[in-house]
Structures are given as structure tokens and as C-alpha cells.
């Protein structure tokens, strides 16, 4: 055998290539659209995580309403009315009385306001100076004193740049979309994890142990698969889970609708994953390395965890990915119907709740969240497709 044989040479460079990059990742990255989709989703994920930072950079929050400022056009800078400003200062003073007193002393010491101003009037006086331009906002923000900085933060929040405008309650659309990304992506991710976990468990038990356990689990799976899901989701979303004893503690608080949706969607979508996993386990169980492990005296748990599980992760990942896309589709639909994520928690779906009435007057409000939902679902589907290609041995042969 000579080292110059073309077959071997090809083999060598191939081996080198394999070492540089894991084969699955390489095949996945060959699927260029899937790669772009993955980068897009990663970017959105980072943006979702950094939502508070981005929102505060524009001086906006997702929940703050301002009836005087409904349907602001994109890019508009909005300043609160005088009465609104004073009201907010009043709330601040009553909430942090100590800070207000301290602020008055600091302001007089620095000569921002005359000595004669009473302690109660001091914050309003500072506000007036800032408004007239006698005192720069930067001075407050750069102050050594924490109470002055806090007050500076309050004053800077009176001016908001609404990059994408405001909605029917005067809430900033960009901030709601950013925070909505957390909810919408988070729900999809959590549903994927829940359904993936249940599906993996059921599929593994069913495929690996077989017998009556398999029969029982598969009957349940089949029965659940025949039920049309949408009416079921509507029933579940409409009922009050807190009426079921023992669950009331679980579904309390503002974000209860998020949790509820995750539980409902997770509870009725694991079946497809269970079937995929079961099929894969049945295939792997016949493999020689499994019988080798059995004859070496490996316990069932060991074989399942270290021989079967790693080899079925491929198809399982594909179906979980596709499921996340579907979860997002359902979440947005239910939230649109008013049954999913409940306001004030923003989600891309519930931002479209009033879209039908706004089609004529504010088309952008009806378009933007939908474009986000659409783009994310299509990205997830592309990734699922890319993953399938990279895990499918038949594609590998071509």
C-alpha cells in the first residue's frame, strides 16, 4: 500500500477535516439557510435578554401607559405634560421621602436652587430649572450623590423616544416587542423543553422495555393524538385552573397566564416526540453495540443512558425544534384570541389583539409583531430542516 494512493489521500484529508469540525456541525453549516436562521434566532435571543437595557436606552418601558400620547408615529420624541411630570415627582417624593430630603440639601449646597426654597418645593424647583434649561440634565446624572442621580433618572424618563411609535394605550411599541420577544421565545423554548422531556421519557420507556408498558403508553399517546388540539386549547385556556384544588398556589401572580400556556401546550404536544423517540429507540435497540453491552452485563439503566440515549438525540432534537415552531404558532394564535398570554404581559401574539381594528388607521401596528412571529417560526422550521438533513443517514450517503 502506498501513501500516494488517491483513495487514501482523500481519506486522510477527510479525516483531518473531521477532526477540525464535528461532522454534524459541518453538514449543518452546509445548509446555509439553516445557518442564517440560527444566527438570526441567536441574535433575537440576545436582544430579548438585553431588553431592559435597550428599552432604558430610549427611555421607555413596556407597561407605562400614556393616554395623551396614543398612536405616536415612529421616531417621535414625546415629553410628558407638565401635570404628568409633577404627578410623577409627587409619587417619587412620597415613595422615597428620605431621598427627597437629602436631594434638597444637596441641591442647595451645589447652588442648583436658591437657599430660600423650602424642602417640599425643592424637587419641583429642580424640575422647573431643568425645564427652563438653567440646569443641565447631565449635571444631575453625573452627580456624586445617589439621590440626585435617582432624581435625574426620574426626570430623564419624562422624555421618551418612541422608535416604533406607541400603541392604543400609549405604550411604546418597541419596548413591548422587545419584552414580547422574551415571552414569545421563552414560551416556545419552555414548551419544547417540557414536551421534549415528557416525550423522551415516554418514548424511551415504551421503546426500550416494550411489553405491556409499551402497549399502555402507546394507547394513551394515540388517543391523545386523535383529539383535535385547537378546540381543546381553547377549552383549557378558558377554564380557571385555580378551581382545581392544589393548583391554586401554582397559578397565582401576574405571569400565571405564561405558566398556564406552557403547561397546556406542553401537555398536549409531547405525543409526536414520544413516537419519534420510540421509533428511534426500537431501531437502536437492535444494534450490535447494544447486544454487546447486554452480554457484557450492562444494566438496563446503563444501556439506556449511555448507549441508547446518545444515539436517539438526533431525531429527538429535530422533532423538538419543529415542535417549538408549532408552539409559537399556537401561542400567537391563542394570544390573539385573548386566551393565551394576558396583558399587561406583552407577547407578539397579544400585541395583535386589536390589529383588526387598526388595519386601516395604524397598519404598522398590525404588521410588525406578525412579521416577527412569521420570521421566527420560519427560522425555527429552517433549522429543524437543516438538523434533519444533518442527522439523516440517507442524506449523508448522497
Amino acid at each position: 500500500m502506498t501513501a500516494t494512493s488517491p483513495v487514501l489521500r482523500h481519506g486522510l484529508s477527510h479525516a483531518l477535516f473531521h477532526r477540525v469540525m464535528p461532522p454534524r456541525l459541518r453538514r449543518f453549516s452546509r445548509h446555509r439557510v439553516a445557518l442564517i436562521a440560527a444566527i438570526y434566532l441567536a441574535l433575537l435571543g440576545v436582544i430579548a435578554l438585553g431588553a431592559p437595557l435597550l428599552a432604558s436606552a430610549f427611555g421607555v418601558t413596556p407597561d407605562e401607559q400614556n393616554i395623551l400620547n396614543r398612536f405616536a408615529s415612529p421616531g417621535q420624541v414625546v415629553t410628558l405634560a407638565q401635570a404628568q411630570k409633577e404627578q410623577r415627582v409627587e409619587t417619587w417624593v412620597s415613595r422615597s421621602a428620605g431621598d427627597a430630603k437629602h436631594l434638597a440639601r444637596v441641591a442647595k449646597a451645589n447652588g442648583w436652587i436658591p437657599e430660600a426654597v423650602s424642602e417640599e418645593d425643592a424637587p419641583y424647583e429642580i424640575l422647573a430649572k431643568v425645564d427652563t434649561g438653567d440646569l443641565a440634565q447631565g449635571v444631575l446624572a453625573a452627580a456624586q450623590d445617589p439621590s440626585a442621580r435617582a432624581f435625574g433618572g426620574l426626570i430623564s424618563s419624562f422624555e421618551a423616544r418612541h422608535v416604533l411609535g406607541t400603541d392604543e394605550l400609549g405604550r411604546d411599541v418597541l419596548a413591548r416587542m422587545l419584552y414580547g420577544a422574551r415571552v414569545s421565545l421563552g414560551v416556545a423554548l419552555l414548551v419544547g423543553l417540557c414536551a421534549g422531556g415528557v416525550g423522551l421519557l415516554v418514548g424511551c420507556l415504551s421503546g426500550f422495555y416494550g411489553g405491556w408498558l409499551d402497549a399502555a403508553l402507546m394507547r394513551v399517546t394515540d388517543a391523545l393524538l386523535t383529539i383535535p388540539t385547537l378546540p381543546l386549547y381553547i377549552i383549557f385556556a378558558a377554564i380557571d385552573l385555580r378551581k382545581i384544588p392544589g393548583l391554586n398556589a401554582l397559578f397565582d401572580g401576574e405571569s400565571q397566564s405564561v405558566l398556564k400556556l406552557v403547561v397546556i401546550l406542553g401537555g398536549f404536544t409531547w405525543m409526536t416526540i414520544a413516537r419519534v423517540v420510540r421509533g428511534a429507540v426500537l431501531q437502536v435497540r437492535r444494534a450490535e453495540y447494544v447486544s454487546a453491552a447486554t452480554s457484557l452485563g450492562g444494566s438496563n439503566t446503563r444501556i439506556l443512558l449511555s448507549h441508547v440515549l446518545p444515539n436517539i438525540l438526533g431525531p429527538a432534537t429535530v422533532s423538538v425544534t419543529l415542535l417549538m415552531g408549532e408552539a409559537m404558532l399556537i401561542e400567537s394564535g391563542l394570544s390573539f384570541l385573548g386566551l393565551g398570554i394576558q396583558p399587561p404581559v406583552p407577547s407578539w401574539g397579544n400585541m395583535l389583539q386589536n390589529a383588526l381594528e387598526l388595519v386601516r388607521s395604524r397598519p404598522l401596528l398590525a404588521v410588525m409583531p406578525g412579521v416577527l412571529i412569521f420570521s421566527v417560526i420560519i427560522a425555527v422550521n429552517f433549522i429543524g430542516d437543516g438538523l434533519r438533513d444533518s442527522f439523516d443517514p440517507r442524506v449523508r450517503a448522497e
Partner: protein
Amino acid sequence: MFRYVVRRTLLAVFVLSLVSFVSFGLMSLMPGDPVEEMRMSNPEMRPEDVVRLKALHGLDKPFPVRYANWLSDVVQGDLGYSRTYKVPVTHLLGDRLLNTAVLSLSALVLSLLIALPVGVLSALRNGGRFDYVSNLLAFGGQSVPPFWLGIMFIMVFSEHLGLFPAGGTQTLGQEHTGFAGLADRAKYMALPVLVFTVSQMAVYVRYTRGAMIEALRQDHVRTARAKGVPEWRVVFAHAFRNALIPLVTVVALALGGVFGGAIITEQVFAYQGVGKLVYESILAGDHNVAMVAFNITIGMVLLMNLLADLCYAALDPRITYA
């Protein structure tokens, strides 16, 4: 075969009764007991009245008894009375079921008319430009939220172009008859059918393409080509017939969703179908309507599942049922 049908039918009846039991239980968890609601809207009602009314309608009984009462009424053909519409449920359902069936079936036919040729062509041009574009469109159709697509269609076709009405089932106040009536209905149905078509067409394109590629790889197709059979005959008589088998199942399953699949689309377009009825009656706590409509939806799915399996056996003699 006969025993198989009997067994499957029994199983379907069992699943349906289980589902109706569970859904009955779930609805009793929904806020708003009818007598409680009466009391809230009528301060003059005395506690004795509440007790009397609850006893009259059997609401004081435990849940299994209430379910048994409801079931025996339904089996005897008494579907109950709608609380919101103030008419017997039977009056309400007929039109709604018909409306939804017309909507779903036209969308199904339309999407098959488009998807079959596109899928076959894309399988023949596997890897080519046409395949690429149709794949991309199929991806889009599968990923777009139907409700948003509906909103966008309303925006473009009804607000800007003024081609179709934004919602409804027929022009109110004008009782068209005959052909004019049909044309009027068609105008209102166009957009919902379009939305429904786009979202299910994608699945059919992908199935047709996959099944055709699989069928074209078979040995008998190569043999037919080697014999010199004309290409169109190879494609349609040898490959397409085999590709149809999985497709028939998919279509039969889709027929099962004929009543339940269009809930969101009907809601967006205010189309008076059974899906909208299910949604509204569940939200309004109109239990009689919700229970019947919901269980018809599920019964349809179970029936079509059975038919799909039987079609499978009829089309592929290799499959037999024990």
C-alpha cells in the same frame, strides 16, 4: 375486515365518550354557573330561588350524575337550549356546520388542485430551481400564523384594493336568491378560503413531493423507463398512483379537521361557522352549545381516521387488517 371495522368503531365510541366526559368536567371548571350568573344580574333573587333553580336544572347534583343526565338527553336527541342565542341547539348547529363544511371543503379542493401539480413537478425537478422556489413557498405557508395572514389579506384585498368584504358570511338585509345569492356568499368566502388554502397547501406540497420522490426511486419505475414507456405514463401511471397512497391518508385526516380546523380563520373573518360557535360558546359559558359542537368536531376526526385506515387498505392490497 368486518371485525376490524367493528373494533375500530367501538374504540372510537369509547374515545368519544371519554372525551365528552372530560370536556364536560372541564367546562364545569369554567367560571360562571348559569344560576350564579342569574343571581348576579338580578339582585331580587332570594336564596330559596337559587336552591330551587339549581334543583330544577339538576345543578346541585354531583358532576358524574350531571354528565349522565346530559348524555341520556343527547342520546335521545335533545341537545338542549342555547343560553346566549335563546334557541334550541339543533336550530343553531345546522347552518353553522354547513357554512364551515363549505369553507373547509373549498379550501381543501383548492389546495389540492394547486399542491398536487406543484408537488409532482417539484419531485420531477428535484434539486432544481422550481423545486427550490416551491420548497421555499411551502416553508412560508407552513410558518405563517393564519390569523395574521388573514389580517394582512384584509389589509391588502379589502382595505386597499376593496376587492372583498373584510368579514361576514353574506350581505345583511339583502336576501339574494339563486345565483346572485351564491355569488354573494362566494365574495365573503374568498378571503377565508384563501387563508385556509395557503396554510394547508404547504403540507400537501411537501407530502406530494416526498411521496413522488420515493415512488420515482422504485425499481418498477426504472423498469418501465427501460422498457421505453413514455415519460408521462411513467410519471402518472407508475409513480403517481403509488404516491397517492400516503396522500389519501393525509387528505382523509384533513377531512377530519373539517369542522375544527378553521376556528381562528373564522374568527378573523367573522365567518358564521361552527368553529366560531365553539369559540364563542366556550367563552360565553354556553355549555350546551359548546359540548355538542366540540364533540361533533372530535367525532368527525375519529370517523375520518377510521376512513383513512380503510382507504389505505383499499389502495394498497398488501395491507390487510386482522
